[in-house]
């Protein structure tokens, strides 16, 4: 099965506010608030780690969730954010590590 790789767009702004991550796309001003699980995925979106590994290491190990359900939820989350240009999706890793400033 082909892997999915995710990276953050360079057009986004992001910051933690209490337990939520605020994410905004400067291109179309779409604004999202991510919960803890979504934040963990978003923060691990380095363009080089497969989504499957992110779900295993960042979601299943840290949160009490069913692995299959977690993978399905993660794919849905990634699809939604990629539609708004907040996450970039590819079937191969990016050649260079993506910027990793912690918001």
């Amino acid at each position, binding site marked *: 099965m082909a892997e999915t790789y995710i990276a953050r767009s360079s057009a986004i702004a992001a910051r933690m*506010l209490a337990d939520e991550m605020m994410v905004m796309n400067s291109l179309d001003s779409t604004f999202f608030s991510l919960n803890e699980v979504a934040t963990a995925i978003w923060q691990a979106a380095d363009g080089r780690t497969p989504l499957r590994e992110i779900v295993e290491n960042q979601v299943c190990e840290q949160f009490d969730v069913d692995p299959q359900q977690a993978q399905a939820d993660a794919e849905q989350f990634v699809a939604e954010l990629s539609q708004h240009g907040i996450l970039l999706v590819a079937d191969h890793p990016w050649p260079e590590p993506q910027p990793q400033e912690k918001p």
Partner: protein
Amino acid sequence: MSLLGEMGQKAFDLSVPISVHLDVTYRCNERCVHCYLDHDDHGEMTTAEIKDVLDQLADAGVFFLIFSGGEVFLRRDFFELLEHARRLLFNVKIKTNAVMIREAAQRIRALGVDTIQVSVYSHRPEVHDTITKLPGSFKRTLAAIRFLRDQGLKVTIANVLMTSNLGDQYHLQKLAAELGVHYTLDPTITPMMDGDTSVLSLRIPGEELKEVFRNPALVPNMEEFCAPPKPPSEDDLESYSCSAAHSFCYISPYGDVFPCVQFPLPSGNLRRQKFLDIWNHSPQLKEVRSIKAKDLTVCSSCTHVSSCTRCPGLAYLEGSMRGPSSADCEKSFYRTGVPTANMLRNGPATAPVRGLVQIRPASAES
């Protein structure tokens, strides 16, 4: 309430500085007749100092960052600061006269800047250039707006309404629509930083303010906006004036921290203190943060208290941050036709000073 509004309220409730206005210089290549700034350089923060401040702001939870001045592009290191800010994932808005922007538009776009706000005062070049005192500035600014727009950047034309350009506001709004950019109108003229009030003579007469408030092209919800005030509830009296010191603050090019751009109460300096120490422990910010509507000396008994846009900074400039801001009294009066408690107290002989208002026309809401 929108999700963005909910986040703003959450930041307010938690006293998180979600938004900061940072002036990186007071130097400017224009000399606008209404400007409140002294344009000399009295020791601006260095590149390293501002980068350190940006690091601290990110750690403190700042999300919205406004870069302004003076003219930001007069700093040779401005793009270095901008790149650093974007690496820290701030949502960045730049306020500029755009005179120096040409090919830089591409670089701004590539850095993921959210919005560029450009000052334009008239659709007539001679009026704009007379206000900026820079010949040819209208032509250069308009060319830059087209460059920025063509790069896909969100551009807002910001117009300050004063006696010199009164009547041009509708033509400029039309020009903004033709250019495909947003438009804001602000009849706020503030005293100079040194207290000189001579610029206040540029404020438009109150009767003209009334006309602006009743223009549906500028005020989309005009009937509601101009409706007589409702009696305040207990919740209204427990509420706070604005976001100053709650979720917003202002930083000068010299590292001074204030509750707001329009609230010159020195609250700390970033060359001597860390940002969070000032934000959390400054007695001045704590005092501003503590004031509820019920604590206001005159306004707590005013019929407008629940709907007035009373600015505590302007009240401070008039003598007390708990007192009335007569400029906002005037705004409430001309908006609704109902006199304020401050006006009734002072009697008709002491009419309020000419108004300071912030309005956002329909075209900017889309």
